[in-house]
Protein backbone atom coordinates (compact mmCIF):
# COMPACT_ATOMS: atom_id res chain seq x y z
CA UNK A 1 0.00 0.00 0.00
CA UNK A 2 1.57 3.21 -1.19
CA UNK A 3 0.03 6.62 -0.58
CA UNK A 4 -0.61 9.15 -3.30
CA UNK A 5 2.31 11.50 -3.68
CA UNK A 6 2.55 14.76 -1.82
CA UNK A 7 5.02 17.54 -1.10
CA UNK A 8 6.82 17.22 2.21
CA UNK A 9 7.65 20.18 4.44
CA UNK A 10 9.44 20.07 7.72
CA UNK A 11 9.35 23.47 9.43
CA UNK A 12 11.21 24.18 12.65
CA UNK A 13 8.89 26.78 14.18
CA UNK A 14 5.14 27.09 14.71
CA UNK A 15 5.12 30.38 12.78
CA UNK A 16 6.72 28.69 9.80
CA UNK A 17 4.24 25.80 9.99
CA UNK A 18 1.25 28.15 10.14
CA UNK A 19 2.60 30.17 7.20
CA UNK A 20 3.12 26.99 5.18
CA UNK A 21 -0.42 25.75 5.85
CA UNK A 22 -1.82 29.17 4.86
CA UNK A 23 0.21 29.19 1.66
CA UNK A 24 -0.54 25.58 0.71
CA UNK A 25 -4.25 25.87 1.37
CA UNK A 26 -7.00 23.31 1.87
CA UNK A 27 -5.19 20.33 0.44
CA UNK A 28 -2.33 20.48 2.96
CA UNK A 29 -2.40 18.63 6.26
CA UNK A 30 -0.33 18.89 9.41
CA UNK A 31 1.48 15.64 10.23
CA UNK A 32 2.01 14.76 13.89
CA UNK A 33 2.95 11.16 14.83
CA UNK A 34 1.29 9.93 11.65
CA UNK A 35 -0.37 6.88 13.16
CA UNK A 36 -3.84 7.96 12.14
CA UNK A 37 -3.03 9.94 9.00
CA UNK A 38 -0.47 7.63 7.35
CA UNK A 39 -2.71 4.53 7.48
CA UNK A 40 -5.53 6.64 5.98
CA UNK A 41 -3.16 7.82 3.24
CA UNK A 42 -2.05 4.25 2.51
CA UNK A 43 -5.68 3.25 2.08
CA UNK A 44 -6.14 6.37 -0.12
CA UNK A 45 -8.94 7.48 2.15
CA UNK A 46 -6.85 10.62 2.52
CA UNK A 47 -4.67 12.11 -0.21
CA UNK A 48 -3.32 15.47 0.92
CA UNK A 49 -1.23 17.33 -1.65
CA UNK A 50 1.21 18.45 1.02
CA UNK A 51 2.21 17.41 4.51
CA UNK A 52 3.62 19.82 7.06
CA UNK A 53 5.55 17.64 9.49
CA UNK A 54 5.45 19.15 12.98
CA UNK A 55 8.01 16.76 14.46
CA UNK A 56 11.00 19.10 14.17
CA UNK A 57 9.35 21.92 16.11
CA UNK A 58 11.05 21.71 19.50
CA UNK A 59 8.62 24.20 21.07
CA UNK A 60 5.77 21.69 20.66
CA UNK A 61 7.34 19.06 22.91
CA UNK A 62 7.43 18.52 26.64
CA UNK A 63 5.49 18.95 29.87
CA UNK A 64 5.84 21.87 32.27
CA UNK A 65 4.03 23.51 35.16
CA UNK A 66 2.77 27.06 34.81
CA UNK A 67 0.99 28.37 37.89
CA UNK A 68 -2.09 26.24 38.52
CA UNK A 69 -1.83 24.49 35.16
CA UNK A 70 0.14 21.69 33.61
CA UNK A 71 1.07 22.58 30.06
CA UNK A 72 1.75 19.85 27.52
CA UNK A 73 3.17 20.42 24.06
CA UNK A 74 1.01 18.90 21.34
CA UNK A 75 3.89 16.85 19.88
CA UNK A 76 4.66 15.13 23.19
CA UNK A 77 4.36 11.40 22.51
CA UNK A 78 2.29 8.91 24.48
CA UNK A 79 5.56 7.24 25.48
CA UNK A 80 6.84 10.54 26.89
CA UNK A 81 3.56 11.06 28.76
CA UNK A 82 4.07 7.62 30.34
CA UNK A 83 7.59 8.55 31.48
CA UNK A 84 6.97 12.12 32.62
CA UNK A 85 7.63 12.80 36.34
CA UNK A 86 5.34 15.87 36.56
CA UNK A 87 2.38 13.91 35.20
CA UNK A 88 3.15 10.91 37.40
CA UNK A 89 3.07 13.14 40.48
CA UNK A 90 0.27 15.57 39.64
CA UNK A 91 -1.81 14.33 36.74
CA UNK A 92 -1.62 10.54 36.73
CA UNK A 93 -4.92 10.16 34.85
CA UNK A 94 -3.01 11.10 31.68
CA UNK A 95 -0.33 8.35 31.82
CA UNK A 96 -2.99 5.88 32.99
CA UNK A 97 -4.81 6.66 29.74
CA UNK A 98 -1.67 6.59 27.56
CA UNK A 99 -0.95 3.09 28.83
CA UNK A 100 -4.14 1.71 27.25
CA UNK A 101 -3.68 3.49 23.90
CA UNK A 102 -2.46 1.33 21.02
CA UNK A 103 0.78 -0.62 21.59
CA UNK A 104 4.37 0.19 22.59
CA UNK A 105 5.59 0.99 19.07
CA UNK A 106 2.67 3.29 18.33
CA UNK A 107 3.06 5.03 21.70
CA UNK A 108 6.63 5.99 20.79
CA UNK A 109 5.31 7.93 17.78
CA UNK A 110 1.70 8.82 18.56
CA UNK A 111 1.25 12.26 20.10
CA UNK A 112 -1.16 13.86 22.53
CA UNK A 113 -1.97 16.56 19.99
CA UNK A 114 -2.74 14.07 17.26
CA UNK A 115 -4.94 12.08 19.59
CA UNK A 116 -7.03 15.06 20.70
CA UNK A 117 -7.07 17.10 17.49
CA UNK A 118 -8.17 14.76 14.74
CA UNK A 119 -11.69 14.31 16.13
CA UNK A 120 -11.76 10.52 15.89
CA UNK A 121 -14.40 9.43 18.42
CA UNK A 122 -12.37 6.27 19.06
CA UNK A 123 -9.47 8.24 20.52
CA UNK A 124 -9.09 8.06 24.28
CA UNK A 125 -7.59 11.43 25.25
CA UNK A 126 -10.52 13.65 24.19
CA UNK A 127 -12.91 12.35 26.89
CA UNK A 128 -10.07 12.52 29.41
CA UNK A 129 -9.39 16.14 28.46
CA UNK A 130 -13.09 16.96 28.85
CA UNK A 131 -13.00 15.29 32.27
CA UNK A 132 -9.96 17.36 33.24
CA UNK A 133 -11.50 20.56 31.76
CA UNK A 134 -8.44 21.11 29.57
CA UNK A 135 -7.97 24.00 27.17
CA UNK A 136 -6.52 23.61 23.68
CA UNK A 137 -4.33 26.36 22.26
CA UNK A 138 -4.60 26.73 18.48
CA UNK A 139 -2.23 28.73 16.30
CA UNK A 140 -3.47 29.99 12.95
CA UNK A 141 -3.01 32.75 10.41
CA UNK A 142 -4.86 35.16 12.71
CA UNK A 143 -2.75 34.35 15.75
CA UNK A 144 -3.46 32.21 18.77
CA UNK A 145 -6.75 31.32 20.41
CA UNK A 146 -7.93 28.95 23.10
CA UNK A 147 -10.84 26.52 22.96
CA UNK A 148 -12.14 24.45 25.86
CA UNK A 149 -11.89 20.70 25.25
CA UNK A 150 -15.58 20.58 26.23
CA UNK A 151 -16.41 22.89 23.28
CA UNK A 152 -14.01 21.38 20.75
CA UNK A 153 -15.75 18.24 19.49
CA UNK A 154 -18.61 18.82 17.06
CA UNK A 155 -19.00 15.48 15.30
CA UNK A 156 -16.94 12.55 14.10
CA UNK A 157 -13.78 14.16 12.66
CA UNK A 158 -15.33 17.62 13.01
CA UNK A 159 -13.81 19.95 15.56
CA UNK A 160 -13.69 23.63 16.39
CA UNK A 161 -10.27 23.91 14.72
CA UNK A 162 -10.41 25.96 11.53
CA UNK A 163 -8.54 25.14 8.34
CA UNK A 164 -4.96 26.23 8.69
CA UNK A 165 -4.95 26.06 12.49
CA UNK A 166 -2.51 23.85 14.40
CA UNK A 167 -3.07 22.61 17.92
CA UNK A 168 0.09 23.67 19.76
CA UNK A 169 -0.56 23.16 23.45
CA UNK A 170 -2.89 21.44 25.88
CA UNK A 171 -3.36 23.26 29.20
CA UNK A 172 -4.79 21.23 32.06
CA UNK A 173 -5.78 22.66 35.44
CA UNK A 174 -3.68 20.85 38.07
CA UNK A 175 -6.12 18.66 40.02
CA UNK A 176 -6.31 19.35 43.76
CA UNK A 177 -4.00 17.19 45.87
CA UNK A 178 -5.79 14.03 46.93
CA UNK A 179 -8.12 13.95 43.91
CA UNK A 180 -9.10 10.43 42.84
CA UNK A 181 -9.02 9.46 39.20
CA UNK A 182 -9.47 6.47 36.90
CA UNK A 183 -9.73 5.60 33.22
CA UNK A 184 -11.46 2.29 32.53
CA UNK A 185 -11.40 0.99 28.96
CA UNK A 186 -12.96 -2.14 27.57
CA UNK A 187 -11.30 -3.26 24.35
CA UNK A 188 -11.21 -6.50 22.42
CA UNK A 189 -7.45 -6.61 22.10
CA UNK A 190 -4.31 -4.51 22.47
CA UNK A 191 -4.43 -1.71 19.94
CA UNK A 192 -8.20 -1.66 19.57
CA UNK A 193 -10.41 1.35 20.11
CA UNK A 194 -12.68 1.20 23.13
CA UNK A 195 -15.88 -0.81 23.02
CA UNK A 196 -16.65 1.75 25.72
CA UNK A 197 -14.51 3.65 28.21
CA UNK A 198 -15.06 6.03 31.12
CA UNK A 199 -12.87 8.64 32.79
CA UNK A 200 -13.56 9.92 36.30
CA UNK A 201 -11.92 12.60 38.42
CA UNK A 202 -13.35 13.37 41.87
CA UNK A 203 -12.53 14.92 45.20
CA UNK A 204 -13.95 13.65 48.49
CA UNK A 205 -14.59 15.55 51.69
CA UNK A 206 -15.44 13.51 54.81
CA UNK A 207 -16.80 10.65 52.72
CA UNK A 208 -18.89 12.92 50.49
CA UNK A 209 -18.20 13.65 46.83
CA UNK A 210 -17.11 17.29 46.73
CA UNK A 211 -16.45 17.57 42.98
CA UNK A 212 -16.73 15.07 40.17
CA UNK A 213 -16.33 15.01 36.41
CA UNK A 214 -17.01 12.11 34.08
CA UNK A 215 -16.07 11.58 30.42
CA UNK A 216 -17.11 8.76 28.08
CA UNK A 217 -15.14 7.49 25.06
CA UNK A 218 -16.38 6.01 21.78
CA UNK A 219 -20.05 5.70 22.59
CA UNK A 220 -21.22 8.58 20.42
CA UNK A 221 -20.10 10.73 17.47
CA UNK A 222 -18.04 12.76 19.95
CA UNK A 223 -16.57 12.18 23.38
CA UNK A 224 -19.17 12.92 26.05
CA UNK A 225 -19.18 14.82 29.31
CA UNK A 226 -21.75 12.96 31.47
CA UNK A 227 -23.20 16.08 33.11
CA UNK A 228 -26.41 14.54 34.47
CA UNK A 229 -24.46 11.72 36.09
CA UNK A 230 -22.02 14.27 37.55
CA UNK A 231 -24.91 16.27 39.08
CA UNK A 232 -26.44 13.12 40.59
CA UNK A 233 -23.17 12.05 42.21
CA UNK A 234 -21.99 15.46 43.49
CA UNK A 235 -22.72 15.73 47.20
CA UNK A 236 -23.49 12.01 47.51
CA UNK A 237 -21.63 9.42 49.53
CA UNK A 238 -21.64 7.13 46.44
CA UNK A 239 -24.52 5.13 47.90
CA UNK A 240 -25.32 2.15 45.62
CA UNK A 241 -28.76 3.47 44.60
CA UNK A 242 -27.28 6.86 43.69
CA UNK A 243 -24.51 5.22 41.66
CA UNK A 244 -27.22 3.18 39.88
CA UNK A 245 -29.10 6.36 39.01
CA UNK A 246 -25.93 8.08 37.79
CA UNK A 247 -24.97 5.10 35.63
CA UNK A 248 -28.45 5.13 34.05
CA UNK A 249 -28.11 8.85 33.37
CA UNK A 250 -24.72 8.30 31.74
CA UNK A 251 -26.01 5.41 29.65
CA UNK A 252 -28.90 7.58 28.50
CA UNK A 253 -26.61 10.05 26.68
CA UNK A 254 -24.73 7.37 24.74
CA UNK A 255 -25.51 6.65 21.10
CA UNK A 256 -22.95 4.09 19.97
CA UNK A 257 -22.83 2.43 16.57
CA UNK A 258 -23.49 -1.28 16.28
CA UNK A 259 -20.26 -2.58 14.84
CA UNK A 260 -17.58 -5.22 15.28
CA UNK A 261 -17.29 -4.18 18.91
CA UNK A 262 -20.86 -5.22 19.56
CA UNK A 263 -24.46 -4.13 19.20
CA UNK A 264 -25.32 -0.61 20.39
CA UNK A 265 -27.21 -1.90 23.47
CA UNK A 266 -24.15 -3.86 24.58
CA UNK A 267 -21.81 -0.94 24.12
CA UNK A 268 -24.13 1.33 26.10
CA UNK A 269 -24.26 -1.24 28.90
CA UNK A 270 -20.46 -1.51 28.83
CA UNK A 271 -20.19 2.28 29.16
CA UNK A 272 -22.18 1.85 32.37
CA UNK A 273 -19.91 -0.95 33.58
CA UNK A 274 -16.78 1.09 32.81
CA UNK A 275 -18.27 4.04 34.69
CA UNK A 276 -19.00 1.88 37.77
CA UNK A 277 -15.46 0.56 37.78
CA UNK A 278 -13.92 3.98 37.25
CA UNK A 279 -16.04 5.46 40.06
CA UNK A 280 -15.02 2.72 42.48
CA UNK A 281 -11.35 3.04 41.64
CA UNK A 282 -11.34 6.85 41.70
CA UNK A 283 -13.12 6.88 45.07
CA UNK A 284 -10.66 4.36 46.51
CA UNK A 285 -7.76 6.54 45.37
CA UNK A 286 -9.21 9.84 46.63
CA UNK A 287 -8.01 11.21 49.93
CA UNK A 288 -10.42 13.10 52.18
Amino acid sequence: MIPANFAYHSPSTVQEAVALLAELGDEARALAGGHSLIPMMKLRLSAPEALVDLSRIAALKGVREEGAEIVIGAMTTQHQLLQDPILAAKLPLIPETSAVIADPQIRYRGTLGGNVANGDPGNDMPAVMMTLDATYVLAGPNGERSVQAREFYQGAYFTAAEDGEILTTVRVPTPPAGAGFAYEKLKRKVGDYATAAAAVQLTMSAGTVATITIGLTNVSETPLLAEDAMAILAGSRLEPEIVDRAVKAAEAITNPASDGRGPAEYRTAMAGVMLRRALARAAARAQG
Partner: protein
Amino acid sequence: MSKVHIELTVNGKTHEALVEPRTLLIHYLREDLGLTGAHIGCETGHCGACTVDIDGMSVKSCTMFAAQANGADILTIEGVAAPDGTLHALQEGFREMHGLQCGYCTPGMIVRAHRLLQENPRPTEAEIRAGISGNLCRCTGYQNIVKSIQYAAAKLAGEPFKEAAE
Protein backbone atom coordinates in the same frame (compact mmCIF):
# COMPACT_ATOMS: atom_id res chain seq x y z
CA MET B 1 6.53 16.30 -6.50
CA SER B 2 10.06 17.16 -5.59
CA LYS B 3 12.15 14.57 -3.87
CA VAL B 4 13.45 14.98 -0.36
CA HIS B 5 17.11 14.70 0.56
CA ILE B 6 17.72 12.47 3.55
CA GLU B 7 20.81 11.46 5.44
CA LEU B 8 20.60 8.77 8.06
CA THR B 9 22.55 6.05 9.80
CA VAL B 10 21.48 2.43 9.48
CA ASN B 11 23.31 -0.22 11.50
CA GLY B 12 26.24 2.15 11.93
CA LYS B 13 26.55 3.06 8.27
CA THR B 14 25.67 6.48 6.89
CA HIS B 15 23.42 6.72 3.86
CA GLU B 16 22.29 9.64 1.75
CA ALA B 17 19.40 9.51 -0.66
CA LEU B 18 16.78 11.45 -2.57
CA VAL B 19 13.41 9.89 -1.84
CA GLU B 20 9.88 10.52 -2.97
CA PRO B 21 8.03 11.95 0.03
CA ARG B 22 5.58 9.03 -0.07
CA THR B 23 8.33 6.42 0.23
CA LEU B 24 7.63 4.46 3.40
CA LEU B 25 10.65 3.76 5.58
CA ILE B 26 10.17 0.00 5.24
CA HIS B 27 10.32 0.29 1.45
CA TYR B 28 13.45 2.44 1.62
CA LEU B 29 15.17 -0.07 3.91
CA ARG B 30 14.17 -3.13 1.91
CA GLU B 31 14.27 -1.89 -1.65
CA ASP B 32 16.87 0.87 -1.67
CA LEU B 33 19.25 -0.46 0.98
CA GLY B 34 18.54 -4.16 0.42
CA LEU B 35 17.93 -4.72 4.11
CA THR B 36 15.13 -7.25 3.82
CA GLY B 37 15.26 -8.42 7.44
CA ALA B 38 12.40 -6.18 8.57
CA HIS B 39 9.27 -7.69 7.02
CA ILE B 40 6.13 -6.22 5.54
CA GLY B 41 3.24 -7.96 7.26
CA CYS B 42 -0.14 -6.33 7.69
CA GLU B 43 0.82 -2.90 6.31
CA THR B 44 -1.67 -1.33 8.72
CA GLY B 45 0.39 -0.82 11.86
CA HIS B 46 -0.95 -3.85 13.70
CA CYS B 47 1.49 -6.72 13.29
CA GLY B 48 4.92 -5.27 14.13
CA ALA B 49 6.82 -7.40 11.58
CA CYS B 50 8.36 -4.18 10.20
CA THR B 51 9.64 -2.98 13.58
CA VAL B 52 13.00 -1.21 13.56
CA ASP B 53 14.73 0.82 16.25
CA ILE B 54 14.93 4.55 15.56
CA ASP B 55 16.80 6.85 17.97
CA GLY B 56 16.03 4.54 20.87
CA MET B 57 12.40 3.87 19.98
CA SER B 58 10.75 0.81 18.51
CA VAL B 59 8.90 1.96 15.41
CA LYS B 60 6.67 0.28 12.85
CA SER B 61 8.53 1.28 9.71
CA CYS B 62 5.47 0.75 7.49
CA THR B 63 3.80 3.68 9.24
CA MET B 64 6.53 6.23 8.79
CA PHE B 65 7.88 7.98 5.73
CA ALA B 66 11.59 7.75 4.97
CA ALA B 67 11.59 11.55 4.88
CA GLN B 68 10.58 11.59 8.55
CA ALA B 69 13.69 9.56 9.37
CA ASN B 70 16.06 12.24 8.10
CA GLY B 71 18.93 12.46 10.59
CA ALA B 72 17.88 9.31 12.44
CA ASP B 73 20.03 6.51 13.80
CA ILE B 74 18.37 3.23 12.85
CA LEU B 75 18.98 -0.34 13.94
CA THR B 76 17.45 -3.21 11.98
CA ILE B 77 17.70 -6.95 12.62
CA GLU B 78 20.77 -7.02 10.35
CA GLY B 79 22.62 -4.87 12.90
CA VAL B 80 21.76 -6.87 16.00
CA ALA B 81 24.48 -9.56 15.81
CA ALA B 82 28.13 -8.65 16.48
CA PRO B 83 30.18 -7.64 13.40
CA ASP B 84 31.99 -11.01 13.55
CA GLY B 85 28.66 -12.81 13.27
CA THR B 86 28.33 -13.81 16.93
CA LEU B 87 24.65 -13.90 17.69
CA HIS B 88 23.15 -11.43 20.14
CA ALA B 89 21.74 -12.99 23.33
CA LEU B 90 18.23 -12.47 21.95
CA GLN B 91 19.02 -14.28 18.72
CA GLU B 92 20.62 -17.09 20.71
CA GLY B 93 17.56 -17.14 22.99
CA PHE B 94 15.15 -17.48 20.05
CA ARG B 95 17.26 -20.39 18.74
CA GLU B 96 17.65 -22.15 22.07
CA MET B 97 14.06 -21.71 23.24
CA HIS B 98 12.42 -22.38 19.85
CA GLY B 99 11.08 -18.82 19.76
CA LEU B 100 10.10 -19.10 16.11
CA GLN B 101 8.35 -21.42 13.72
CA CYS B 102 7.77 -19.74 10.36
CA GLY B 103 10.03 -16.84 11.37
CA TYR B 104 8.03 -14.08 9.74
CA CYS B 105 7.51 -12.09 12.94
CA THR B 106 10.97 -12.83 14.35
CA PRO B 107 12.96 -9.80 13.14
CA GLY B 108 10.32 -7.48 14.56
CA MET B 109 10.10 -9.46 17.78
CA ILE B 110 13.85 -9.38 18.32
CA VAL B 111 14.30 -5.71 17.50
CA ARG B 112 11.37 -4.84 19.77
CA ALA B 113 12.68 -7.08 22.59
CA HIS B 114 16.10 -5.46 22.15
CA ARG B 115 14.63 -2.06 23.05
CA LEU B 116 12.50 -3.56 25.83
CA LEU B 117 15.59 -5.01 27.50
CA GLN B 118 17.41 -1.68 27.22
CA GLU B 119 14.57 0.00 29.07
CA ASN B 120 13.88 -2.82 31.50
CA PRO B 121 16.78 -5.31 31.73
CA ARG B 122 14.95 -7.81 33.99
CA PRO B 123 11.30 -7.68 32.95
CA THR B 124 8.67 -9.91 34.54
CA GLU B 125 6.73 -12.25 32.28
CA ALA B 126 3.80 -9.80 32.33
CA GLU B 127 6.11 -6.93 31.36
CA ILE B 128 7.51 -8.98 28.46
CA ARG B 129 4.00 -9.78 27.24
CA ALA B 130 2.99 -6.11 27.48
CA GLY B 131 6.28 -5.09 25.88
CA ILE B 132 5.72 -7.23 22.80
CA SER B 133 1.99 -6.56 22.58
CA GLY B 134 2.53 -4.62 19.36
CA ASN B 135 4.01 -7.70 17.64
CA LEU B 136 1.80 -10.50 16.38
CA CYS B 137 2.91 -14.12 16.01
CA ARG B 138 0.50 -16.56 14.43
CA CYS B 139 2.58 -19.72 15.06
CA THR B 140 3.95 -20.02 18.55
CA GLY B 141 1.25 -18.83 20.91
CA TYR B 142 3.98 -16.53 22.32
CA GLN B 143 5.03 -18.99 25.03
CA ASN B 144 8.44 -19.70 23.57
CA ILE B 145 8.95 -16.10 22.50
CA VAL B 146 8.55 -15.04 26.13
CA LYS B 147 11.03 -17.74 27.16
CA SER B 148 13.48 -16.59 24.49
CA ILE B 149 13.41 -13.06 25.86
CA GLN B 150 13.78 -14.35 29.43
CA TYR B 151 16.77 -16.38 28.27
CA ALA B 152 18.36 -13.27 26.76
CA ALA B 153 17.63 -11.12 29.81
CA ALA B 154 19.32 -13.70 32.05
CA LYS B 155 22.29 -14.06 29.74
CA LEU B 156 22.79 -10.28 29.44
CA ALA B 157 22.64 -10.03 33.25
CA GLY B 158 25.24 -12.81 33.55
CA GLU B 159 22.80 -15.08 35.39
CA PRO B 160 21.80 -18.67 34.68
CA PHE B 161 18.44 -19.01 32.90
CA LYS B 162 15.85 -21.00 34.78
CA GLU B 163 12.75 -21.94 32.87
CA ALA B 164 9.59 -21.35 34.89
CA ALA B 165 7.75 -24.55 35.77
CA GLU B 166 4.65 -25.04 33.62
